[in-house]
């Protein structure tokens, strides 16, 4: 007890020195991105720790390289911790009061973290903050405060087997009617044309296309009980009932990408991550990405993102912000996303990123109309209940009104309280 109290008392002095050094460094022109500063000012080097989850070995390696680049600048030293069971590890560190200075924040975790006061609002402290997509900025905004700059993002679009569509003489659908027709045409006995996971984070695209959403925009009211919502759910449920659409589990696959790769579906609805998975697991499959069909209310999709959070309890905030600025600088962000399917969160980089992968254009286009799938603290129970209902719709044992009522009631408890 007394030892830790002692340590706690001593730390602020060290932190203050580091912060001062970092501030001085920020003020001094020589500390910029140019290589000159290597030998230049030697400020008291702050030691930063960073927590991240692993997306793929290749991405881990790139993250390590970017961090090495930063460490070489000599401003601060960052130690990276790539953790399995990330949420649990991060939560334990936060609860213990000694969190890492910088860490990945999944967009759906942001409201909880922000409400708990775990995050330092640094969103607008990075260079050119308005360059980030507005929907992503919204994902990381809680009660009017924009907390952290997005690292990169993905959107959901329609991914299909090129050969199968050509053989069936089907063009990528652009409306709901065309989607139904396409799914029907691509369905073979015992095999559905379209496979999609039975959860809100997939089915939500149809809600968006119908102009429906579980809550209103500022998440102050549940809006499950709208005719548009019923229409969206009924449309997808009917496709399931007809056997033209199914869950991955139903066809013996873990997720949509696997179903597509194994030929257990001709189309699926997935995000950018499918590109890496297909390259690894099914390199011979010819697939393409098209925009999702437009529904009664136009186009709609979901965006998922991760941001670089800075801990409120960090002793080296200024240094941490400096590091995040480096990470989300145009140059480093492009370097970080260039070789990967995830897209840079800065609008200005879209063209450059697309230059060598024009086939992924649909994902980028999605950013213009994507909805954030982020609600308020404690909303996870509502999503769980909605997913429960969606599983019932996919399996055909629950009627739409029952699912709507269950989610609406579950939401009322959280949204009003």
């Amino acid at each position, binding site marked *: 007890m007394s030892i830790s109290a002692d340590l706690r008392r001593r730390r602020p002095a060290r932190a203050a020195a580091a912060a001062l050094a970092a501030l001085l460094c920020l003020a001094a022109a020589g500390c910029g991105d140019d290589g000159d500063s290597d030998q230049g000012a030697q400020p008291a080097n702050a030691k930063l720790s960073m927590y991240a989850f692993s997306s793929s070995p290749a991405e881990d390696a790139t993250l390590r390289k970017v961090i090495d680049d930063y460490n070489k600048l000599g401003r601060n030293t960052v130690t990276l911790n790539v953790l399995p069971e990330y949420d*649990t590890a991060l939560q334990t560190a936060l609860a213990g*009061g000694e969190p890492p200075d910088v860490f990945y924040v999944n967009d759906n975790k942001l409201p*909880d973290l922000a409400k708990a006061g775990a995050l330092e609002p640094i969103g607008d402290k990075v260079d050119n903050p308005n360059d980030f997509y507005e929907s992503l900025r919204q994902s990381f905004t809680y009660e009017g405060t924009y907390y952290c700059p997005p690292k990169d993002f993905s959107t959901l679009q329609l991914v299909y087997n090129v050969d199968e569509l050509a053989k069936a003489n089907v063009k990528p659908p652009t409306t709901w009617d065309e989607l139904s027709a396409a799914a029907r045409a691509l369905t073979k006995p015992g095999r559905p044309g379209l496979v999609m996971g039975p959860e809100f984070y997939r089915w939500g695209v149809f809600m968006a296309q119908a102009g429906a959403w579980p809550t209103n925009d500022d998440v102050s009211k549940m809006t499950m009980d709208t005719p548009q919502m019923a229409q969206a759910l009924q449309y997808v449920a009917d496709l399931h009932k007809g056997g033209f659409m199914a869950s991955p589990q139903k066809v013996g696959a873990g997720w949509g990408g696997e179903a597509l790769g194994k030929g257990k579906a001709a189309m699926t609805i997935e995000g950018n991550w499918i590109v890496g998975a297909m390259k690894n697991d099914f390199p011979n499959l010819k697939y393409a990405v098209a925009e999702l069909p437009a529904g009664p209310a136009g186009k709609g999709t979901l965006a998922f993102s991760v941001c670089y959070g800075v801990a409120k309890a960090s002793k080296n905030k200024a240094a941490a912000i400096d590091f995040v600025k480096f990470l989300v600088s145009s140059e480093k962000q492009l370097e970080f996303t260039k070789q990967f399917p995830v897209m840079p969160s800065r609008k200005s980089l879209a063209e450059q990123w697309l230059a060598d992968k024009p086939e992924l254009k649909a994902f980028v286009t999605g950013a213009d109309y994507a909805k954030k799938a982020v609600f308020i603290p404690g909303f996870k*129970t*509502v999503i769980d209940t909605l997913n429960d209902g969606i599983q019932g719709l996919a*399996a055909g044992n629950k009627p739409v009104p029952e699912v709507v009522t269950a989610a609406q009631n579950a939401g009322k408890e959280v949204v009003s309280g």
Partner: protein
Amino acid sequence: MVDAARAGTAAPAAVPPPAGRPGRRLRRRPSRIRGRQALAGWLFVAPALLGLGLFLVAPILMAFWVSFRDWSGLAPLDTSTPTGTENYRDLLVESGVVQSDFAKSLRNNFYYVLGVVPAQTALSFFLAVVVNSKLLKGKTFFRTAFYFPSVTSSIAVAFIFIFLFSPSGVVNVLLSALLPGTVETVWLSEFKGVVHTVLGWLGVDTAPAFLGEHRLMGLSYWDWLSGPSVALLAIMILATWTTTGTFMLMFLAGLQNIPEELDEASLIDGATPRQRFFRVTLPLMRPTLFLVLTLGLIGTWQVFDQIYAMTAGGPQKTTLTPAYLIYRDGFENSAMGRAAAIAFILFALILAFTGIQRLLLRRED
């Protein structure tokens, strides 16, 4: 026997001291020595007590305290706010998703216990008797073979079972070969309770009015009586398969403790093998049986890893269990206080069940 032994050690202390002055003096002196010994004793156990206090008692007390607070678990504990009994009320009294989820988890786990405990106990006893029989050759091989599932990592086994029960997995292939037509059941997505299924065969598809209208903890009586879902049944088979080996070893140890003379004596008395088993072996195995049942009950009420790996509470919440709910609420829903409350309700539940079982087994004496 245990009682007799305990009485034996206690006897010297219970002997009344001889009357008279010398006796009193004699009595006082050893007591002083004993006092000093007691101090030394406490000193010797102090490190262990400190360890237990720090790693067992303190965390339990702290968790109990947390169960009366609103804590996200995303900031240090001192940021939490007191909420009185709200966490418990949300779970037990106030109707809502929290309550109905908890009710579902209790229902699921109840069926799980009801299926797994008798199955694993009977199976392990049977295997122990087989391995213990004098006629069996290659005992070591069978002992190892039966024990093998228990030393395998439960997560690894869970993943194997996912493959076994997948639509194109071994189970379906086997069933397709045995039954007419092809079986394409998606076992781990089957949410329908087996009781509901059986009732469905009998023509009862929807809840009869008296079952559908009344609710207990936000769940209709009809839902309470659903029986385990097919997905849960798969996990129950897995659990039985993995734990049987351990309990078989316990039964084996118990069987080998039975003196052979007893068996021989009953043989001479003309008892049939059946009588020998039910009148001699089984009564002598009661302590082991009690141990196995108790451990089985505790273990099954805490089922977590298989669910985490195989179904994550789905399909349609039919494999939610209190232990999984603790994880979900604490680490995914940022409701650590509620998670702690579930933990204590689960603790009370296990205590109650063990107590009931103790009473039942004792009454048979």
